């Protein structure tokens, strides 16, 4: 917050918060967004998410920022609307052109009129999950465009990026003008995440005690301090562990006290591995699944398909399941996977994908991409060969595969 409020007088107009999966980057970005919104410093925020087709590519980025600008800075509203009226195809143009027309040009007259004269008047734009934007080249392009525009036009903007420290992103932040204008924060052991995780857990357990359907069976002192300590230790600095525990414990179909006892009884086989506790928790959840093969088949289809989003009826038809089966099968994974009201399945955290595709971590629950691709290829050929001409979904709909959307 000191950087945002210019209290440290840093020249950097970009902050990069990076850390591994589950470190809590998105949680931090979300909290900062809420705090800055309250203080009217937030200009816009965009949270990339590879499991959400509306947020997994760059297409909506500038449009979203521009829209939020019209809400948070009404003085630019006319200029932004004017730019869209003058060029209705603006959103199909390059990122640089969109940024210039919809962000730079509307802000410039205000800046020149002294609206942002005070350094503290600068506004924050948050871009979370940069690594979850579909194409690494586009991720670099976003950094390049924002960095160059900012340097060229001296806008009153500061940018907070959060992402995994992927090689190409690290490289982009260390070349060109970016190293001179960026301050970095690593979410590793050095930032002492344990206290934040303890706060998070305390707050969430309090929520469960006061709102859970079976709250009358929960003792007021639950969970005991030593249990909280153990959960913090088990987290090993990863928010995702704490978050998954909370999802698991707060299931409305179970008693939270029983669920927490189960979590505490889980013992990872090798404690020295980086995701040992998280993997043990994931393994435990998958072990509890009644029929694992169809569940892994559904998850494989989600992870390996060429589509950004898959809807329940498509999955059920493709896997020869009955309507409603996917929801039933995934019922045991409610702490990891969410089925939205639009019948679109969402994997709650990217670390689950990493887990399932890594044999050393998921072991018997490993999704073997090669053999799953073979299985799905055979299913496709079988369906093409057999045909089903009277099928109700046989209509000329052209969907957009991942590759095209990323372009």
């Amino acid at each position: 917050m000191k950087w945002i409020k210019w209290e440290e007088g840093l020249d950097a107009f970009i902050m990069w918060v990076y850390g591994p999966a589950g470190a809590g980057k998105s949680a931090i970005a979300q909290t900062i967004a809420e705090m800055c919104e309250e203080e009217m410093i937030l200009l816009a925020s965009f949270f990339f998410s590879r499991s959400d087709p509306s947020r997994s590519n760059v297409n909506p980025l500038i449009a979203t920022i521009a829209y939020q600008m019209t809400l948070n800075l009404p003085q630019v509203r006319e200029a932004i609307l004017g730019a869209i009226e003058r060029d209705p195809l603006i959103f199909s143009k390059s990122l640089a052109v969109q940024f210039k027309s919809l962000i730079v040009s509307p802000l410039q007259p205000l800046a020149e009129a002294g609206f942002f004269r005070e350094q503290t008047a600068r506004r924050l734009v948050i871009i979370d999950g940069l690594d979850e934007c579909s194409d690494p080249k586009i991720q670099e392009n976003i950094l390049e465009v924002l960095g160059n525009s900012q340097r060229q036009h001296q806008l009153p903007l500061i940018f907070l990026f959060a992402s995994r420290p992927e090689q190409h992103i690290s490289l982009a932040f260390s070349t060109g003008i970016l190293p001179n204008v960026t301050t970095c924060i690593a979410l590793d052991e050095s930032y002492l995440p344990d206290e934040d995780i303890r706060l998070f857990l305390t707050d969430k357990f309090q929520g469960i005690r006061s709102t859970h359907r079976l709250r009358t069976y929960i003792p007021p002192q639950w969970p005991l301090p030593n249990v909280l300590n153990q959960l913090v230790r088990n987290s090993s600095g990863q928010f995702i562990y704490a978050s998954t525990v909370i999802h698991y414990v707060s299931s409305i179909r179970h008693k939270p006290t029983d669920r927490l006892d189960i979590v505490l009884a889980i013992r990872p086989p090798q404690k020295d591995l980086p995701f040992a506790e998280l993997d043990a928790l994931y393994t435990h959840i998958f072990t509890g699944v009644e029929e694992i093969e169809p569940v892994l088949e559904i998850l494989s289809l989600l992870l390996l398909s060429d589509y950004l989003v898959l809807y329940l009826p498509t999955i059920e038809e493709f896997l020869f399941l009955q309507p409603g089966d996917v929801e039933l099968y995934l019922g045991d994974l409610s702490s990891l996977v969410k089925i939205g009201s639009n019948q679109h399945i969402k994997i709650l955290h990217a670390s689950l994908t990493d887990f399932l595709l890594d044999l050393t971590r998921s072991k018997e629950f490993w999704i073997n991409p090669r053999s799953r691709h073979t299985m799905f290829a055979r299913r496709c050929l079988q369906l093409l060969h057999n045909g089903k001409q009277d099928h109700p979904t046989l209509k000329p709909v052209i969907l957009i595969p991942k590759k095209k959307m990323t372009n």
Partner: protein
Amino acid sequence: MFVFVFDNTSHYLKNAEMTPQLHDDLINLSFDNLLDFFKIVHLNHLRAFIVRFLNCLKTVVSIPSFSLTCSPYIYAFQDTAIIRRKSYSPDFSSWFRQDAL
């Protein structure tokens, strides 16, 4: 759902492991049961599917001199409803060779 199959077949094939079962499926593949579907699907989409599919076959079967005339896969493929529906491209075989092979 067929649109999903149509779009994803090549994707799965490209990343698949060539097993004897998959090999047999490819040899025996026919599109005759999808005539009605092919009548309503957008022609560009159909063309893209064929090109993707053939490109993919080239990768999957790993035959360096893969061509329309030597591959049993293509014999199977040629004898299908897609190829017989020539009306949308008079020089169908030429763009096969250019685009896909």
